[in-house]
């Protein structure tokens, strides 16, 4: 995504004063203030923020590389949470009967890994059987068509889950059945702390992948100029499979990780979908880094609204906020299109 301004010639001070940086600055300030006074809120926000970063990052990736606004993204959260529940429950039962430290520590991971793999696999299937045929037929109105296509997929997945597995809530209370940690006088649930760390590690790996590996570079190339990518020998179909697989895998990992907060049921993906989309639109469509950063800001916003203003406003305020931002910066906080342009 080209920057409208050459980053090497705009003086540092002017850049810092830009709308975007002011917003980030305010967010950091608020975070610090909240953290000092209400540390448990901060911890909770970091845990969810980390996972929303994975979800929003995945959504931004698919839009950036494949130009697909994935409305079924939330359903991968659901798939992940279901997969992890299915794998973890027997492990949990085993732990109750035969307690073992090794199993206690490593128990949650098989579920999470399987969830990511299952999600990735379903994503690849979607690419091969749905998006590839569509691509072959016509690229006309691609964005709108794929948006509607994924809306259809979403409906099928949610109701399919309901038909196959019923409407029950399948949840767990804790992944790691240990007492909370005491950090600087604050009680921190182990689940939340570890989930945050998992998120950070995943984000770091993902970032390294995109920036420094041959395939990651190829993915970025495809997102910037598809034809150019073909001209240098990049197989688009392979990249698309990888992109969708990665994106859906990340969403499923998020769903698996947050199982203790969000039990598995057919429409559990609704809120994550909304949050992921909110972050991506706020940060600027297709901007993966912006989505990751934006996720933490949005998580904070959400927590603050619920805590200080009341549950009733949790829907209205964010919507009003994003409309306000988009009025001034139609391409999103981190987006860099010059104007909000209509796509051709």
């Amino acid at each position, binding site marked *: 995504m080209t920057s409208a301004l050459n980053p090497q010639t705009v003086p540092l001070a002017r850049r810092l004063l830009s709308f975007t940086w002011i917003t980030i600055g305010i967010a950091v300030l608020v975070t610090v203030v909240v953290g000092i006074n209400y540390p448990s809120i901060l911890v909770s926000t970091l845990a969810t923020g980390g996972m929303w970063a994975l979800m929003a990052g995945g959504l931004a990736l698919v839009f950036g590389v494949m130009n697909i*606004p994935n409305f079924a993204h939330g359903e991968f959260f659901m798939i992940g949470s279901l997969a992890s529940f299915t794998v973890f429950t027997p492990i949990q039962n085993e732990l109750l009967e035969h307690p073992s430290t090794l199993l206690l520590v490593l128990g949650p991971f098989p579920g999470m890994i399987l969830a990511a793999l299952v999600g990735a696999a379903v994503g690849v299937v979607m690419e091969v059987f*749905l998006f590839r*045929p*569509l691509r072959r*037929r*016509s690229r*006309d*109105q691609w*964005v*709108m*068509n794929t*948006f*509607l*296509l994924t*809306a*259809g*997929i*979403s*409906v*099928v997945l*949610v*109701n*399919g889950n*309901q*038909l196959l597995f019923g*409407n029950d809530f399948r949840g767990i209370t804790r992944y790691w059945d240990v007492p909370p940690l005491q950090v600087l006088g604050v009680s921190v649930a182990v689940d939340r702390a570890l989930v945050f760390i998992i998120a950070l590690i995943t984000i770091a790996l993902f970032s390294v992948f995109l920036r420094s590996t041959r395939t990651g570079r190829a993915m970025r190339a495809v997102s910037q100029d598809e034809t150019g990518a073909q001209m240098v020998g990049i197989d688009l179909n392979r990249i698309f499979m990888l992109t969708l697989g990665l994106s859906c895998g990340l969403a499923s990992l998020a769903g698996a990780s947050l199982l203790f907060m969000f039990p598995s049921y057919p429409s559990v993906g*609704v809120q994550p979908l*909304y949050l992921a*989309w*909110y972050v991506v*639109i706020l940060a600027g*469509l297709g901007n993966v880094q912006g989505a990751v950063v934006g996720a933490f800001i949005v998580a904070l916003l959400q927590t603050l609204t619920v805590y200080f203003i009341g*549950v*009733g406003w*949790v*829907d*209205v305020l*964010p*919507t009003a906020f*994003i*409309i306000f931002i*988009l*009025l001034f910066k*139609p391409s999103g906080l981190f987006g860099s299109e010059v104007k*909000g*342009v*209509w*796509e*051709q």
Partner: protein
Amino acid sequence: MPARTSVSAMRAFLADRRVPVVAFVLLLLVLPLIPPFNRQDFTRYLVVAVFMAAQAVAFDFTAGYINVVNFGFAAFVGLGGYTSGLLAANYGLSPWIGIFVGALAAGLLGLLTGALTLRLRGIYAAVMAWFVGLALMGIVRNWADVTRGSLGLNVPLFFASSDNLPYYYVILAMLLVTLLVLALVIRSHLGLAFRAIGQNVQAARASGINPTRYLVINFTLSSAFAGLLGGFYAHYYGILTPDVMLTSRTVEVLAIAYIGGRGSLWGGAVIAIPLGIGVELLRIQFSDLPGIHLVLYGILLILVMIYRPAGVAGFLRGLDARLRRGGSAAHEGE
């Protein structure tokens, strides 16, 4: 020769588009009066089907002509319903007036939403409309003092009797009015502007059209009709919950509109009848499998998007073109 002339005359008669339209309308008018269709349960299916048809028309007015998917459509319908319902329940306002107040409310929200979001890219506008819808649903759910939230709001009905037939003619009238008004707008210079903008915004701007103004007009009109239909919903079912605004409701309408054929207005209306009835029958048959009708809609939508993006209307238009070519060839043979 007389025989050949009557064949080509018949071909011309059938090819004349007014005939199928009139025939279809007549069919709809008399269907619930003819055995074996003159049963209460069948009439009820028809009511639901025609309700979906009318919604699909209002939806397609935006999606098919200015290329904007109002992903919060169900919320505008719900707004109309709640407005009319609350006025009737709390202030005794006659439903026949209330539904227009509901249309007004929904139209105003459409105006506001459109003005704020339609200058953005198509996908942004669609998602923003979705956010507005979610926000509205949240407000309705949480403002339980007024709306009774998920417990449900009891709303007075149109008619005293529980006979479905009068309700059917009300919704049928609404469908026809919606179709007529929106089709007339499409044929006017407004419609021309819509299509120009839908195709290519820059070119439209260069021809002196201010795109945003027309987009907002379109969106407002569509929302107003959505609200009107919401009023019908309220005074037909007699009970409202925030679930009327669920995104899956929008997807149902959307699916019908696209399967019917985007940009045709009538496509969704026509396909809604068999689909709506079929879905209701499916629901009865498989009452132990909740949500199966949504799976059906989803699969159909996916198939249409990949294999027949022009929908049923596009398919019929292709047939129609081939018939005409066949007719004129026969003519030439004479």
